[in-house]
């Protein structure tokens, strides 16, 4: 079938429509519809990735209109990989979500699944599209749905966290829109490939410079690059846990993808690293982001909040790698999109299981958790090792490429920050392990005999299976990272 690229995006969109309608009739119906929609989407993403690996870039013309007039979905190796990542994680998370949605937002399960599907549609569209304005609209779909989702979460703090997210999100998207306006002004086109063909002739133009800076600032705000990160920790930690598990690994990573797409495909390396002279400043900014994210994570008392600051830290890795200006750094950044999405997902799955059983996850609530939830904690430990960068988990390999890239460019501060942040993560996670493993359960929790055998109280089996599967895939992806680099990333960068 030639229509797989469109099907990836259309399936969740239609499913959202039907899930919304079905919720009016019978709330229970919306869950199976969501599962079917995302299953189709994931299957199409797999087929698309295989086609792209076998026979090169796919140009899919929406409704048969030829670019630059029509909107084109241009799927090359990079976004085929990200598409599979997004649809796969969304699908797996949906399976794990059934129980936690039942627990957290049972009265609004229908709306939850509808918004969930729309959010996935937005992310997939952002990844698939080859049109700059289309990208803006889809970013806004993603953002709008996530505003609504954050407000569905914590009854106390959710709406306020969401409102602050709206303000900053709108500024970010508007900056991007303004940047696209400048690009349109000077090139007269909105198709990425078309713009990329026109731009080299306009090297000295200050309009292009303004367009580039505005687009980058917009995307940086959306991906929460330090110091534009303030919205992220509150928004992510007060949203429903079923949504946090998906938004934390995906949203920022897709924005990193947008940045790399703009850099590689639209503006081109030559323009960014030879005409402009800002790469060093951005690498410094990324260095600061890594250190600041790590230090702020150390100060947190709540596990969810702590992990959100680790996301801020990881964003620094990818931005720094992409702006290194050499192949190794870019390889590291792209590989880290994949790895970081999977390991953040694994971490949040484990946290989701804890929230399901414990309700709140302040560090002091985690005492004796190894005894109580052994499987969840095993997943958590694996994911934590991956974030720290212990081989053979996948986190090690992308960090390795990033450090090599930094050394090749001579950006020793960035390499140092990477190593320091690994140490900070090690301290952070071992602090958690210590609490979970050595400190006994608080009194009154057990039935008088707190020191003897602790009853195993695990999360539901569906959540455990997904946690186990994703945690194991951390090792599998780590072992196959050479293959991934050779078949996907290096051919893309050629």
């Amino acid at each position, binding site marked *: 079938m030639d229509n797989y690229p469109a099907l990836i995006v259309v399936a969740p969109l239609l499913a959202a429509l039907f899930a919304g309608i079905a919720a009016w009739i019978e709330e229970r119906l919306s869950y199976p519809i969501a599962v079917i929609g995302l299953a189709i989407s994931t299957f199409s993403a797999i087929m698309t990735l295989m086609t792209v690996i076998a026979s090169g870039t796919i140009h899919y013309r929406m409704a048969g209109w030829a670019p630059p007039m029509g909107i084109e979905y241009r799927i090359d190796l990079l976004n085929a990989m990200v598409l599979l990542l997004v649809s796969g994680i969304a699908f797996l998370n949906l399976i794990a979500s059934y129980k936690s949605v039942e627990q957290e937002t049972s009265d609004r399960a229908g709306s939850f699944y509808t918004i969930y599907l729309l959010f996935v549609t937005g992310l997939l569209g952002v990844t698939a599209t080859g049109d700059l304005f289309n990208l803006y609209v889809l970013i*806004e779909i993603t*953002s*709008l749905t996530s*505003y609504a989702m954050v*407000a569905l979460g914590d009854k106390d703090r959710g709406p*306020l966290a969401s*409102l602050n997210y*709206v303000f900053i999100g709108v500024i970010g998207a508007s900056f991007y829109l303004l940047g696209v306006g400048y690009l*349109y002004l000077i090139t007269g086109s909105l198709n990425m490939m078309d713009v990329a063909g026109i731009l080299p002739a306009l090297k000295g133009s200050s309009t292009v410079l303004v367009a580039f800076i505005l687009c980058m600032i917009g995307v940086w705000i959306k991906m929460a690059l330090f110091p534009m990160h303030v919205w992220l920790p509150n928004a992510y930690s007060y949203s429903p846990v079923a949504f946090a598990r998906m938004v934390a690994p995906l949203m920022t990573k897709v924005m990193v993808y947008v940045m790399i797409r703009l850099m590689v495909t639209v503006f081109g390396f030559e323009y960014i690293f030879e005409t402009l002279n800002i790469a060093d400043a951005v690498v410094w900014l990324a260095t600061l982001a890594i250190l600041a994210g790590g230090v702020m994570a150390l100060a947190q008392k709540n596990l969810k909040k702590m992990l959100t600051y680790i996301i801020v830290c990881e964003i620094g890795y990818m931005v720094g790698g992409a702006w290194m200006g050499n192949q190794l750094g870019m390889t590291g950044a792209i590989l880290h999109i994949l790895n970081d999405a999977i390991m953040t997902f694994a971490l949040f799955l484990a946290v989701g299981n804890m929230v399901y059983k414990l309700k709140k996850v302040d560090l002091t609530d985690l005492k004796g958790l190894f005894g109580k939830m052994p499987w969840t904690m095993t997943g958590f430990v694996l994911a934590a090792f991956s974030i720290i960068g212990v081989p053979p988990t996948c986190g090690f390999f992308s960090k390795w490429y990033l450090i090599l890239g930094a050394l090749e460019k001579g950006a020793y501060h960035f390499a140092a920050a990477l190593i320091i942040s690994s140490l900070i993560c090690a301290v952070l996670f071992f602090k958690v392990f210590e609490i979970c493993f050595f400190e006994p359960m608080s009194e009154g929790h057990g039935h008088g005999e707190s020191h003897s055998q602790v009853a195993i109280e695990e999360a539901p089996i569906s959540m455990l299976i997904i946690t186990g599967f994703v945690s194991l895939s951390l090792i599998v992806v780590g072992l196959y990272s050479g293959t991934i680099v050779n078949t996907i990333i290096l051919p893309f960068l050629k």
Partner: protein
Amino acid sequence: MTDLLPLIVAKYNYWLYVILMMIGLYAMIAKNNLIKKLVGMNIFQTAIILFYVSIGYKKDATIPIIQSAHGGGHGAHEAAIHAADYINPLPHVLMLTAIVVSVATFGVAMALAVRVYQRYQTLEEDELRMRLSEK
């Protein structure tokens, strides 16, 4: 100064949008009341929409509807169509989408403000911060 003035006058529309945008951004950053921030957000978005609308404009051009093609009786009159005679409709069409987006964002934000008010009985940011730190 003598150079700057003609520059401002010649491109007065763009200067206007810059001013509007800065008013919006100022309100979003400096105002204490959440509704005032929302209004600032809307001004900010409107400035960008106006910017797009204005880049489609051409001097002495008309709306892009080709009249001679209508009816068919004027076939003899049909002259070559010059793009310069018609304004560029594309930015305007794009802005229809952007308006929809901004309305949707505004709606969501208003709904959230209502929820915040129901919960805390206030929309002033400093009071909200005090309430939150009390707990």
